[in-house]
């Protein structure tokens, strides 16, 4: 085997690939060959590093230099300067926006300092398309240990003792779920991985599957062994082509090595995994809908009980867990429940992966211990709010969750605290909002999503959410009354109480939590016909400040609807009944004479 002196790790997550990380890999390899260094330096395409804000990322090992926002044309300089002459390319290093210092090494970046990576342990570290690298990182050792040294019941006990709870949002104890499935006897059982990640702004499951697909396969086999199932199914949305490609490669490799198939590790245990594709329906993240969709039926939920653990896929006992939950399993088996349950808070053990999005400086993927505060996540790891604006709220739990405000910033994040604060963990999407965001519009955005995604089976969700959306629209147009607000709240509660599945039972949450936390903003829309954040177009008013207007006529000439009138060298006037609020006049005015109220 050739002995490489250096490794160049290039991020191959969907985000970085969109910014041409493919060509970076190609160029690096070409340059190395030109210099005759291809046997000394290895180029590896890894999974997501998490620091998507500054992608594409190239990391040099072993000196741990972390290059950000690398372009394909920068590769020659990296090879020439760093690889040959040993000098870091200063202009490609990360600059801390607060301290204005350059940080060469990811370990010293605020973004990575507080993170503990369990589920993401191999993301950005190994080549996800190479099983050898996974094995070098203790891959499949946990499965081997379970099959040869532990009884199925011991495995379940270990998972129960670890305190692991479902990472898909519900937070149900994973070990307990396995235990129930193991006790239901049948000629065939199934292990299902829910990779139907649908929250707007969430991409942790995708990143795990793209960066470390074997971790999920190994965990599914462990689950199969403990509940007595021989078949695994991964339900993944067709919008994740890269994750699908890497999963397929991983499944083929595992079969080739004998890690999937018959007589695994020389035992009687057999297990195999297949993929099932979804069309990207949000409701199919709900386990009964997911199972129906896999069966070839419409993706619609059914009432629980019976739970999938009794009657799931094809009527057989089925265990459904989310991608991130599975990614934790091999580590728990290798390091022990007692190692795992020391991380986190009393009732929420381990870590949680969050996808940071919205008005935050460091958009990306992070993994922190349960109990980390929102302040640490947003202001330390996330680097604070973009453009120095003021923090207003953060939406957790996607369309099923709620918003948390300034007063929740020091709340330790775990399953129970988030529910107590009126939101929920959800799958881990965090959308950060600043002072320019209108909270009524935010609620409307989520309702627009749920209206679109409702499967239509039960009327509270199908009709009720539509009505909620219409009421919100009236509010943002300034046409609602105070009675409408109480009707809105009442309807939210009815929909929550009467909907069939989790989608409808949680879809009013964004409205309720914004009403609780930002009541004044709702009132301002209704009573004053004003949008305090200046986002609702219908409530905006364009006006000319007479003192600044010199009567140059530029605005009148650019107005597409002829709403501006005025003589040359005289103050102009905007007719609000004609104005369409397109903003063309503001762009044209050289004297700052036009304002939006």
């Amino acid at each position: 085997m050739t002995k490489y002196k250096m490794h160049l790790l290039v991020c191959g997550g969907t985000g970085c690939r969109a910014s041409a990380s493919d060509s970076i890999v190609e160029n690096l390899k070409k340059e190395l060959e030109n210099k005759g260094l291809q046997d000394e330096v290895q180029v590896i395409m890894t999974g997501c590093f998490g620091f998507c804000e500054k992608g594409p990322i190239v990391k040099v090992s072993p000196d741990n230099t972390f290059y950000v926002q690398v372009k394909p044309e920068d590769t020659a300089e990296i090879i020439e300067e760093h690889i040959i002459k040993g000098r870091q390319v200063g202009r490609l290093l990360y600059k801390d926006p607060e301290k204005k210092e350059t940080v060469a090494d990811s370990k010293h970046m605020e973004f990575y300092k507080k993170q503990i990576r369990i589920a993401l342990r191999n993301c950005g570290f190994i080549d996800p398309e190479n099983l050898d690298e996974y094995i070098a990182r203790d891959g499949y050792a946990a499965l081997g240990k379970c099959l040869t040294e532990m009884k199925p019941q011991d495995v379940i006990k270990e998972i129960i003792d670890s305190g692991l709870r479902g990472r898909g949002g519900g937070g149900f104890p994973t070990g307990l779920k396995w235990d129930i499935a193991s006790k239901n006897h049948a000629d065939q059982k199934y292990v299902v991985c829910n990779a139907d990640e649908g929250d707007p702004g969430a991409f942790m499951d995708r990143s795990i599957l793209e960066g470390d697909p074997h971790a999920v396969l190994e965990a599914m086999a462990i689950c199969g062994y403990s509940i007595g199932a021989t078949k695994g199914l991964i339900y993944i949305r067709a919008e994740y082509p890269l994750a699908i490609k890497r999963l397929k490669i991983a499944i083929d490799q595992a079969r080739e090595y004998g890690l999937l198939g018959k007589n695994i590790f020389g035992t009687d245990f057999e297990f195999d995994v297949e993929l099932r594709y979804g069309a990207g329906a949000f409701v199919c993240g709900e386990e009964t809908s997911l199972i129906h969709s896999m069966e070839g039926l419409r993706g619609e939920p059914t009432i629980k009980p019976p739970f999938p653990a009794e009657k799931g896929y094809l009527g057989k006992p089925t265990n459904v867990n989310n991608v991130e939950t599975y990614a934790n399993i091999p580590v728990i088996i290798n390091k022990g429940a007692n190692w795992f349950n020391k991380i986190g808070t009393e009732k929420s053990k381990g870590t949680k992966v969050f996808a940071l999005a919205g008005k935050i400086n460091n958009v990306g993927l992070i993994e922190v211990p349960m109990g980390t505060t929102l302040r640490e996540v947003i202001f330390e790891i996330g680097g604070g709010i973009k453009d120095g604006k003021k923090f207003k709220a953060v939406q957790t739990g996607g369309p099923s969750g709620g918003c948390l405000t300034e007063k929740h910033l020091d709340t330790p994040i775990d399953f129970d605290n988030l529910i107590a604060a009126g939101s929920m963990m959800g799958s881990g999407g965090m959308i950060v909002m600043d002072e320019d965001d209108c909270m009524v519009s935010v609620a409307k955005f989520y309702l627009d999503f749920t209206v679109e995604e409702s499967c239509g089976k039960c009327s509270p969700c199908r009709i009720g959410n539509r009505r909620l959306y219409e009421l919100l629209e009236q509010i943002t147009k300034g046409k609602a009354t105070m009675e409408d607000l109480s009707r809105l709240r009442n309807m939210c509660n009815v929909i929550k109480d009467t909907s069939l599945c989790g989608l409808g039972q949680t879809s009013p949450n964004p409205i309720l939590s914004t009403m609780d936390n930002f009541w004044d903003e709702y009132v301002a829309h209704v009573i004053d016909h004003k949008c305090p954040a200046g986002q609702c177009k219908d409530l905006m008013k364009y006006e000319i400040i007479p003192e600044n207007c010199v009567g140059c006529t530029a605005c009148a000439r650019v107005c597409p609807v002829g709403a501006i009138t005025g003589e040359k060298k005289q103050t102009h006037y905007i007719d609000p009944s004609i104005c369409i609020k397109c903003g063309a006049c503001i762009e044209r005015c050289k004297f700052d004479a036009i304002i939006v109220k």
Partner: protein
Amino acid sequence: MTKIKTLADLKKMKEELQAKVDLREKGDSPESYVQIKVGMATSGIASGAKEVMDFLIEALEKRNIEAVVTQTGDMGYCFAEPTIEVKKPGEEPIVFGYVDVKKADEIIEKYIKLGELVDGIIPVNYQIIDEKK
């Protein structure tokens, strides 16, 4: 492709494959290993720094010393090239000058293994910018 039939197979395979990711794992926590930086500027390379680096990587592995060998830019001691900086865990770094393969061998055997100082140490007589406060 050989199939993995037992847990022992897997463990043996892991041992063999460890080298694939060793560099990255050590790079993630260099402070727990012997860190050696080889000055690889034009003057260093001209005086044989590349051979010294290759020798160090090979020799350390053969002698089972866990170390991270990286290259760095010009250290400024052009009169004494090749220069290397050796930092043992928890100790101050020491710079050695005029390091050829023979000297490198001596540094491994005496300084890294036994902690004995050898000839050729360049006294540190500079401040780095972080220390100037």
